[in-house]
């Protein structure tokens, strides 16, 4: 006998494909993997409680991101706490995954592979170094592929403001990576 799915189960099903995005976005805010999980978890519950208030199902993704942000903002201190033990943090600090062999530019030598990895982590560092007002839109639009409109929704910002922050942030990012320009300009 099959029972109809509960509200929790239905919500979970919608949430599931977005967990990665939620976690990565939370990480951009908290800069701490354990806090990011806590934030994502807390935000999920908040979102579930407000689920009925969401009228447009199409907007689920930016709506969810917005909740993550407000949850973070409401409890900035709680979610920004420094990790207690360095050893634990080391073990759990997520690094980027191993880059795929053929991602950009075709097959590479071991030296090039190393440079590519280094470049990758420099890019990530540079982005995480950006002030929040630039880091968030740049991350959402360029790393996660949200549309300008979705970014504006997620940040509760007028479209014009989002665009100017997006481009300004993107420019700052590019400038931070100036020394790697030769690698990037092939």
């Amino acid at each position, binding site marked *: 006998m099959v029972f109809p799915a509960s509200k*929790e189960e239905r919500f979970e099903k919608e949430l599931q494909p977005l967990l990665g995005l939620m*976690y990565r976005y939370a*990480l951009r805010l908290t800069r701490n993997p354990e806090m990011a999980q806590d934030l994502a978890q807390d935000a999920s519950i908040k979102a579930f409680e407000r689920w009925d208030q969401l009228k447009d199902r199409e907007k689920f993704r930016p709506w969810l991101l917005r909740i993550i942000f407000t949850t973070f903002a409401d409890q900035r201190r709680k979610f920004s706490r420094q990790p207690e033990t360095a050893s634990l943090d080391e073990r759990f600090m997520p690094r980027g995954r191993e880059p795929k062999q053929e991602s*950009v530019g075709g097959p590479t030598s071991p030296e090039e592979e190393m440079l590519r990895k280094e470049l*990758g982590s420099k890019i990530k560092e540079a982005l995480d170094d950006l002030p929040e007002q630039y880091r968030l839109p740049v991350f959402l639009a360029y790393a996660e592929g949200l549309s300008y409109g979705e970014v504006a929704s997620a940040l509760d910002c007028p479209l014009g403001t989002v665009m100017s922050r997006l*481009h300004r942030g993107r420019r700052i990012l590019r400038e931070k990576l100036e020394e790697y320009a030769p690698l990037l300009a092939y």
Partner: protein
Amino acid sequence: MVTCREVREQLYFFLDDRLEKKEASFIQEHLDACPGCRREHQLESNLNLKLKDQALWEEVPSALGLRVRIALREQKRDRTALSALWAFFYQQRAFVAVAGLVLIALGVTINLREGTQATKLVAHMVRDHHVLHLGRGSQDLAVPVPEVAVAMHQMTRGEVHLPTASQPGLEVLGARFCKFEGQKTPMIVYLVAGKEVSLHALARPVKGFKGFEKVSLKGETMYVGSANGFQTVLYKAGDAFCLLAGDLPRQKLLELASSIL
């Protein structure tokens, strides 16, 4: 004619495909003719590609989905249990009174020098309800010990795998991560609900757990063992079971356990 400066200003719009066809073609014409701007375009385009590359960014921890599921279930349980709460508290008033006193006592200070690590663990666990609930009522119930051992073992390697129901009627309600000061490894404590089980199963030596020894303290039965280097004590406290684990002498752990009874 479009200048280099104009091109640079419009570059991100161009890359993001936000320009009108006509404007875009002007930019393209300029790029075709200007190596400097072409290089800049190439650079920015490649940077965009790199930013989009999944390999650059973090993979979501496998535990997160589970944590969310558990949190959702708990809020559901809290929701539906709200009406039953009064009845429950009235039935369990003795236990609740003791628990209340314990919480107050822990809130003040407990001065066990060697035991302070475990004290914090215990306070953390009791305060956040990190206990094993093995069903309601006064039946003897058992923890799926092999699964707990596996989960703890795998936690030391930074991954989490929880089995689905290991026995009919046994349902995993929750799990949390506890960090103890001084401990290097986080630990999972299960919340499990079940219908019929037996405490004797706990005494079975299993992988990771070095056998449980039945001990009687203040008339209460406790099961003492070790798992992956932690001393563990499993005992029943009213309606719930407690699993304590700590990196401290077994005796201290037992003392703490009995102080909660």
